[in-house]
């Protein structure tokens, strides 16, 4: 059954005010296009979860879409501070919930596995445990030692950008695959955006690369360049100029508003954004193919 739809329809149908949204990725395949669509549709009171909130969460907060953030490292990757989220926290304008990376990812792993919680070994850095009451301890029934536990995270919506998917949502990802698989299984609904929509036979030609099966996906949207200014391995490079520019844009509310007006509210969709950007050539990457594998014909 095809799940292909326009991104604006997928956001309208599957992202509701007050939802916990996890827009996945560890600096790679960040779903900027979906984030912009959420801003255009004016969602409110979202809880934004991700181990590494970056520019798209800054933009969602600046646009007034979010009231809470759940994270383990918030920064402008490779540049510095994530100014808008940071400032909202410092001014007490926003709720937050904090973990270490492993804590955050373990929450997803628990959520993806249908478990209520998962244990982790102690780290002895107990200040975060003291600050976040959801981080608890239990006694290992086998050794008698204490281990740390974190509760499952089951976001209302996961948004995952992939290199290629078929129309049912069976998806191939490669390169850095931080937590995309875990969040897709943990979430109640999954919106995929894809650089390419391919025939099912392409997916079946390399089944080990399928990280997300279509039957857990709610919507598949064909959105090339959806990850800009982040990147899609093999498709286009990270736009480092923009990450540097955001440091300035995010430091002044007037500049942030101007950015949102021009690049989010001022364009209809990602296609218009990409044409306006005009960086097709600059962000191109030379090809480097993997050696083919032989699955064998049985």
């Amino acid at each position: 059954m095809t799940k292909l739809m326009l991104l604006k329809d997928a956001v309208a149908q599957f992202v509701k005010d007050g939802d916990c949204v996890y827009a996945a990725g560890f600096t790679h395949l960040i779903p900027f296009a979906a984030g912009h669509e959420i801003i255009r549709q004016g969602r409110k009171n979202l809880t934004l979860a991700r181990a590494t909130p970056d520019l798209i969460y800054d933009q969602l907060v600046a646009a007034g879409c979010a009231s809470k953030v759940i994270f383990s490292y918030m920064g402008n990757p490779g540049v510095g501070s994530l100014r808008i989220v940071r400032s909202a926290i410092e001014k007490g304008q926003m709720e937050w919930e904090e973990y270490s990376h492993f804590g955050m990812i373990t929450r997803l792993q628990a959520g993806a596995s249908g478990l209520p919680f998962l244990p982790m070994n102690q780290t002895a850095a107990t200040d975060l445990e003291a600050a976040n009451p959801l981080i608890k301890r239990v006694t290992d029934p086998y050794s008698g030692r204490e281990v740390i536990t974190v509760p499952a995270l089951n976001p209302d919506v996961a948004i995952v950008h992939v290199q290629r998917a078929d129309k049912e949502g069976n998806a191939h990802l490669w390169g850095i695959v931080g937590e995309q698989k875990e969040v897709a299984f943990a979430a109640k609904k999954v919106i995929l955006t894809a650089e390419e929509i391919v025939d099912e036979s392409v997916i079946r030609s390399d089944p080990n690369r399928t990280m997300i099966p279509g039957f857990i996906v709610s919507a598949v949207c064909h959105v090339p360049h959806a990850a800009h200014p982040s990147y899609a391995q093999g498709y286009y490079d990270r736009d480092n100029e923009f990450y540097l520019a955001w440091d300035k844009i995010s430091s002044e509310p007037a500049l942030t508003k101007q950015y949102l007006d021009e690049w989010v509210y001022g364009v209809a969709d990602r296609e218009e954004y990409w044409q306006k950007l005009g960086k097709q050539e600059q962000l191109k990457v030379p090809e480097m193919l993997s050696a083919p594998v032989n699955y064998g014909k049985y």
Partner: protein
Amino acid sequence: MEYSSAELMIVNAARLLKDGDVVFVGVGQPNLACNLAKRTHAPNLVMIYEAGVIGAEPQRLPLSIGDPTLVSGALSVVSMYDIFANYLQRGNVDVGFLGGAQIDRFGNINATLVGTDYVHPKVRLPGSGGAQEIAAWANRCYIMTPHQKRRFPEKCDFRTSAGYLDGAGGREKASLRGKGPIGVVTDIGFMEPDENGELMLTALHPGKTAEMAKENTGWPLKVAAELRSTEPVTEHELKILREELDPTGIYLKSAG
């Protein structure tokens, strides 16, 4: 020979790595230190990045911890859960490099906030990321940071990552598998834990003095009876750093 304090720290950090070490690399200066070690005395260094990349051989300077150049030509790419569980928690990482806004007398690190109230931070920092687990579970850790009083307070405002906690025995009590921060590289010299886990000055870079280190440390800094001198930075090391690894000086020129 002229060099920046960043270059001095990177060269000295690189020399701490052994050939064959599996090292958890951070972006920026630790990345340069590891790549320098790999191109000099440690060609079999295995570089792991917390985004999930194992055995990276970056062909250009990575500009973030998840740069695509880390992936192309790497040995393996795995999920974040796998990297923290199978690699780090399981004990398959030899070395971790750490930094932070504050490093205290016992090598504990703060990367979370400045201020005393978690709920009302004076300055909110990025947070732990992987640092909490790296400090606990890598077999050995090194800290790289410029020697400044504000960076070395007696006690951290917030303990993001464990050093030697409140003194000797703290790590053992919590069953941490790693040895903790066995060396701190600054632009003045080296600090290493004494038998109580307190950081003491154990080496100086050429031209630096113990007085300089004491003045820039927030606790009464002990000085080792036999204070070593580090080997001078060589032209070969600087050439690799400046011509191959960071030709535009993004990380070499900064103070850290």
